């Protein structure tokens, strides 16, 4: 079980994020929650690709003894590529959400969910 600690960390991050999204009343905190969930999922993907004792799958910086028995001694590259895509997606979503929140703040003068009409439910 002790070897599952990275996965426990992933789950913990997802929970912290979900908690913020579900129970917090401040819009910025909700956005922070989504960001934390996303980090959790990214960490999950990275964690899936880890191979015991593996090095980064880049031949420029790999020691020659590692590179010679190549696939077995390197971590899996696909999850890293997926994470890369996912991070950029996260940045884009974050930018859009924050600009919406700026507009909402200008409109209502508050960030409290309870003061708004549609977001209340």
């Amino acid at each position, binding site marked *: 079980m002790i070897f599952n600690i990275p996965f426990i960390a992933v789950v913990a991050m997802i929970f912290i994020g979900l908690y913020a999204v579900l129970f917090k009343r401040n819009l910025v905190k909700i956005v922070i929650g989504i960001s934390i969930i996303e980090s959790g999922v990214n960490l999950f993907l990275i964690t899936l690709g880890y191979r015991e004792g593996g090095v980064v799958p880049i031949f420029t910086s790999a020691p020659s003894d590692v590179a010679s028995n190549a696939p077995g001694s390197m971590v899996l590259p696909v999850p890293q590529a997926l994470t890369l895509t996912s991070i950029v997606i996260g940045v884009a979503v974050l930018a859009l*959400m924050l600009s*919406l929140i700026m507009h909402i703040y200008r409109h209502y003068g508050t960030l409290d969910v309870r003061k708004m009409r549609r977001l209340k439910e």
Partner: protein
Amino acid sequence: MNWFETITMHSPALIVAVPLLAGFLTPLVSRINDTVRNLFVLIMLSITGILIAILGYDVLTNGIRTYVFGGGNTVITLPSGLMFHVRIIFEVDSMNIFMVIITIILAIIGIVYSLSFMKKEDGLDKYYTIVLILVTSTLGMELTGDLFNFFVFLEISCITSCALIAFWVHKGEALEAALKYIVISSIAALFFLFALGLLYAQYNALNMATIANAIQFSIIDQAALILIIAALTMKAGLVPMHMWLPDSYGEAPPSITFILIAATQAGLYGAFRVIFTLYGNVFNSINLAYVNLVITANTIGWVLVALAIITIIIGVFMALIQTDFKRLIGFTAVAEIGYIFLGIGVRLASKYVQYSGSSATAIAFSEYSSIALNGSIFHIINDCLDIGLLFLVAGAIYYATKETSLDKMGGLARNMKYTTVFFIIGLLAVSGMPPFNGFASKLMLYESTYQLNPIITIIAVLASILLLAVFVKVFYSAFMGPEQQKFKEVKEVPKGMLIAMGAVVVIIIIFGLFPNLVINNIVQPAADALTNYTTYISKVIPGVI
């Protein structure tokens, strides 16, 4: 190889690439002037439409077509006999074609409508850019055969729809609806990504056919299934997470809502694909190994039926009490989504009965389960057209009177004759009245549901009748009644909007008069494509099954 064959071969990629290229070019083209930009957008979408027609003809006659991005072999075989995919694959079968046709019809009509509806707004070059990207993402979701690619397009669709919902930034409600939409759909997308990670950890593959071929339905797979279905039903607007749908449909510009409907249906398509193809060997065939588990076709089917019934009831009853025209139609859209999921649920549950019952019931239920699937698929296109038409009418009324509240309308039939006729057709179609298209699909749903449990049918029929009542009320309060002073100067909307609404009405009437034509030519092949999941798999992994 002649040029037509070449175009057909590359069309799966071009269908996505052409509107994307158009989206990237629009900011540059719109520096010239507005007319050029509008023409450019229309022409690019028409080219996409032609490509879709070519591909659709090919797929419906010759079967599944695949496209490998980057070329090379579709499948890599190791000496040990393992086969897998490295590159992204688009795999197009009749179901994909069905969805893509819906999307492009809605996109072109939506663009034609917005050419006159949005004429007086600012920021139109960004508007058209984002609309093109939204259409691209919807097409991409519906064509792709790769799970991660589906996720990427899901996120594109989420971002672009959010930006478009917030188009009227001076309205606070629009901003709130957009924020709600993006929060819910990005959480849904992250759930999807998590589930994808679970599947990747199991099978080291991202291609749908490869995973479908290897699926074991272990506990992790079941967890992934639940997460994916939860994510996609969030995106499609099933009950626990339906609140974003009326908000965003109600607050977005109507031309956008019309295209958003297609984007929502893409999430629905994802649910179809995941249930019937990715987990096809569990839900689509006789596999006694999976009968004793907790999560079977039966439980998933009944859960979906229950959620669908709740969705229908909530949608209809919330629609009853709304006073805002567009929000009212939004809740109707929720109810219609419920009908589609009802079809899926009935299909799964009766498929289970078919395998566990005696041979006589087996034959009967096999027939009814396929009717349920057909009805469900047919209802997708009817839902798009009917709800879309109502939104276009609401937009036309807003354009003419600057009013969306039903209490303040009245007597509009005198000045807006065409719109009134279109609205009557829309209301009859959406509530499932005979000569129109909603009737055909709803009848199929009722018929199959009745075999499973008559109570469900009764609820569904009653909800449909209530829907009629809701819209008759709307009709009287908006179009009938005494002529109001402030609406005396109201004129009929411009020709572009009338053409767009007229096109939808023509399609609705054709579908309503000749439902068999549609069912035999596109709905039945789509249902067959979903049912024969082995064909889907063996197309990209030769020699399997």
